[in-house]
């Protein structure tokens, strides 16, 4: 009864009430994912499950047996930053930093969705096989990640630069 977190096997909690976020933060001491609202409204707890972005605060850890979880610690580390982490630094994509882990995990999942052809609220042509990640698409698709410092311009610039081949 285990899942994989950043490549390492992790046992499922005995208490079914434990959220995936609490399992990561309190049991595994992976404090990159943040507890902002703890009710699915802010996106600070975003992690990747088999490459898909989800909210770990609303996820019961026991539901994720056998799944592969990637947190911000699994994307990059000091000395070997993920290109998007580096871009957040260069573009001032944060002030307090509390939302940043969620923003970055969310953006990585978001780009995979665009490449797969998942439509968004602002996608004009639903029949198109390819979706261009323009600024409207980028902002709409990142709307589940709030930044109370209001660093959105830097966040958008960092994502656009990193995933440039997908951005018009």
């Amino acid at each position, binding site marked *: 009864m285990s899942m994989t977190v950043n490549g390492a096997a992790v046992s499922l909690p005995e*208490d*079914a*009430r434990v*959220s995936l976020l609490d399992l990561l933060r309190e049991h595994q001491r992976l404090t990159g994912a943040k507890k902002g609202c*703890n*009710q*699915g409204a802010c*996106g600070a707890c*975003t992690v990747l499950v088999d490459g*898909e*972005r*989800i*909210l770990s605060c*609303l*996820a*019961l850890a*026991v*539901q994720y047996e056998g799944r592969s979880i990637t947190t911000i610690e699994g994307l990059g580390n000091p000395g070997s930053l993920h290109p998007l982490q580096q871009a957040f630094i260069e573009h001032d994509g944060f002030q307090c930093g509390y939302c940043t882990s969620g923003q970055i995990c*969310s953006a990585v*999942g*978001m780009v995979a*969705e665009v490449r*797969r*052809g*998942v*439509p*968004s*609220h602002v*996608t004009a042509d*639903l*029949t198109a096989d390819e979706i261009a990640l323009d600024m409207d698409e980028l*902002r*709409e*698709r990142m*709307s*589940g*990640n709030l930044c109370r410092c209001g660093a959105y311009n830097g966040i958008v610039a960092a994502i656009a630069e990193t995933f440039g081949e997908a951005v018009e």
Partner: protein
Amino acid sequence: MRSFAYSRAIDAADAVRRGSAPATKYLGGGTNLVDLMRETIERPASLVDVTQLSRDIAEQADGSLLIGAAARNTAVAEHRLVRTRYPMLARAIASGASAQIRNMATVGGNLLQRTRCTYFYDDDGSRCNKRHLGQGCDAIGGFNRMHAILGASEACVAVHPSDMCVALAASDAVVLLSGPAGERRLKLTDLHRLPDDRPDLETVLEPGELITAIELPPLPFGARSTYRKIRDRASYAFALVSVAAALEIEDGAVKDVRIALGGVAHKPWRAWRAEALLRGRPATEVAFMAAADAELADARPLKNNGFKVELARRSIAAVLGELAGEQA
């Protein structure tokens, strides 16, 4: 959160067997139920995880589309047949919640999500007949700009929060159920209840009954459909009013039409009256407005939500006008 027993069903029969125990709830993605459990508004003794049940999306021999109840919202919205044949459904899903939540939430769970009425959530400070039948409703005399204008009662003015269900209501979707008494089929428009004097009962599901799939019957003019959502923010907010509609025009007249409204009632609101008025009539803005007026004739706005009547009226006409324009 109260402690509970967790188990995972391997198939529908296994789920129903487990789900028939007292105080048991089925668990999908958890995006609504886990939150309500944390608030102790939901207090199940046990949860049966049904996310391992069918999530297939497949065309059937008669041209209908069968969607397993465990399919994630994202999977439905991105499916080619949904995007091309039922664009109003793809658009409705894409306008709901956030991408992270759509990746978690299942189709079955979306249908059974509970109202976002703030008084329903405020267990410590507010009266709510949905939480405690007979307690009273603080929304009726309270801050109620998000609440119902159609089909509400003296006991409850809450609205159903789903976008997906509005498109399903307009699509004549059928809900496939499995329960202790066997299997049955229900029209989606018959699944949810109006509050009447029992707002605690939100659907007609029997105890232990499980949604196993949704069936979308062929809708030949479904490709000419859309979904419009009006909300307080540009994204990631519940609807003030939403409209799902499909329109077929022949020789300048409405040959067939489907309309459903969200954000206005305790259930996804199929606009039967407007549809009946429009069939055979000229596809003009005047006719669209008249149909919208007829649908909203019984609207009973509350203190803070009178704007919804005009908003719904204009939105219906605008969406039909947009669909008619595409065919001009």
